[in-house]
């Protein structure tokens, strides 16, 4: 399928119209060829390339491909990566996500200057990161202090420590219980996102047929 030429407007359109992170990622994979062709030492398309690689970087994070995201940062034009503020922010974010520095991740996403066209990707990633972390924390802890839980989700830790009802409510809304006497939250393990379950069940049910076919 021939894609429309790579442009800032086209990138924005792809970013807003993609129905899933995977679709966004797959479209941008196709565009990397064109971006690579456009990247020359004296390219006057640095703004477009910066937006492309930043968006592509977030598409990696949104599909949980952190190792490949790192490889992408090594593939992008290095002269641009060293001077462009948006790509510099991406590298700082990558380090924080890699090292699981939760507080820093939220700080980078919320406080560093991101281009307006990239905002939808930044906001999507913040939501994704929060949901993913909530699932992981709910599995990792049986009892957790509100401040620690708030830190994982980028919420106000001082208010959480004081037992702020608004913050506690965010956790109880997903099935956690709040022990006011002990001032501890008791997470309820959340099941992992099982997007491929139906396919898996279908395929497992075919195995016996397969064994029967070749078993003789």
């Amino acid at each position, binding site marked *: 399928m021939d894609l429309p030429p790579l442009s800032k407007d086209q990138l924005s359109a792809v970013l807003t119209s993609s129905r899933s992170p995977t679709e966004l990622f797959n479209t941008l994979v196709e565009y990397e060829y064109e971006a690579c062709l456009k990247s020359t030492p004296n390219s006057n398309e640095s703004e477009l390339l910066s937006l492309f690689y930043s968006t592509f970087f977030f598409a990696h994070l949104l599909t949980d491909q952190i190792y490949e995201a790192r490889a992408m940062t090594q593939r992008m034009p290095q002269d641009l990566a060293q001077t462009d503020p948006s790509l510099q922010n991406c590298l700082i974010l990558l380090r924080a996500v890699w090292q*699981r520095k939760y507080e820093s991740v939220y700080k980078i996403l919320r406080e560093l200057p991101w281009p307006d066209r990239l905002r939808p990707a930044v906001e999507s990633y913040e939501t994704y990161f929060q949901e993913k972390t909530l699932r992981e924390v709910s599995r990792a*802890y049986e009892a*957790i202090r509100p401040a620690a839980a708030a830190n994982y989700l980028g919420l106000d830790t001082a208010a959480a420590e004081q037992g702020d009802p608004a913050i506690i409510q965010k956790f109880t809304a997903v099935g956690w219980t709040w022990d006011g006497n002990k001032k501890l939250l008791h997470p309820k393990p959340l099941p992992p996102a099982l997007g491929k379950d139906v396919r898996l069940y279908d395929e497992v049910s075919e195995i016996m047929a397969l064994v029967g076919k070749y078993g003789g």
Partner: protein
Amino acid sequence: MAEYLSQLTSVSPCLHTSTPSDEEDYDKHIRDLITYLQQPNRPSELSSVSGYLLDNLDPYLHSLSYLSVLHFKIQSVQGDNKTRLSKQVCPGGELWIKAVRLLRGFDPFQIRYAGHEWRQLIELVIQAAQAVSKPLLAVSVVRDAMLRLDPSSEVLTSVHTAFMRLTLIARSYSLALPILERHICHFPTLTGQAYQKYHQPTLCGEHESSMTFLTDGSGFSKKLTYRDHLQFFLYGAMIYMALRKWDRALHYLSIVISCPVTNTVSKIMVEGYKKWVLVSLLGRGMLVSHPHLASSHVIRAYKALAKPYTLLADAFEKCDFQRIEVEVNAARSIWHADNNIGLVQQVMCAFSKRMTLRLGMTFSALTLADVAQQASHRPTSLNEVESLVASLVMSGALNAVMLHSHNDDDKTTMVRFCSTVELRCFQEHDTREQIVQDSQLLDVVGRSILYANRGLELSNENFLFLQKSMRWSDNPEKGSARALDELASGIDIEEDIMGDTH
């Protein structure tokens, strides 16, 4: 020019709902076209009007003609100069664009007749992308062309090895996964085997296996050597290492190190062994047992040639961090020379993680202070330890849960290591996925066995036929070769039992 065009458009894509006789007609048309293209003066004639022809030929409808004209044109542009590429061939150039257009949309049935030209075009695209230091430009083009020609990718060719190398240079590791995740289990079929004379399928037909057209004489692969085979799996392992898929990397490396040898091991195998040691420490936290296929003298050779690696593994397994540091520092020049310094650094970083994971095998619960004391090789704050343990638990590497105490003064955190039963609900999904992967593998193996049995005449049909032949043994003149010919040509043997003998 119009005359050339009419000749070149004489073959269009075959409709694959046709009968065997249609396939034979189509095969004949294609071979006629090839004869026309191979006439001595044809390259210069077609090359001189290549612009017009390439603009009027459709890369899908007339793939064979398009490829041939493009090939002639590239040859005329390049001349005898094999190293310096013309601008037209380099990325963005006129011929590059046409080559990419063809490789992304050719008719795989027509291209089966032009293996040499197809491979040369692939190699040229790889060379051109590397010449402008943009190997990425060739990665998806080559991968898509490989899968277009052979969607199963079950036959190893020299293009596979070149593609793996290209993805490593381009650092586009995940783009190689569609090839690596397919099960390669054949080399190009050797032509001229005795059994093949009974069954010579047409190239343009629908075949169960790509082995039918990916033969040693097809031109789709250079002559493969043991080195190409080893390099493919070594590169594949390196791609998995970059993606931190240690188990897959270990599997690929085990193929490299257990390759059959007569008396000496190759340098690639030794390189594979060195990486295999480090990857097994990273993936499993210990030196895993050697593949059963590797003979003892080969393992002895590896150990002698990779001494610093085995010493490092020994220190790691004995949980002696000081010795690990000594071994790493002593052999620093070797890690650099072997290009394994990155893996060695990861091994050092993985030490605390590995120690923490081991605690779960001994204790059922510990405080974080105890974890720090038992697992940390240097003074570490409790916050750091909690961060490490939490990351291990949250990533699923450690089966444990953490509990904060409710005492405000004493902020103790307890780590309770779980039995596998408690985590069953979370493992269920992974297990199901593993079963599905194994079933796909079984499917490939099953199909390959059926295909091989048929080729080697070991299928049930052949055994039944042999039984019948034995019953005819009282008639010595009825040779089995004659009967096999009849079977291959589809003649009913029962009806032919009274046929003439010769």
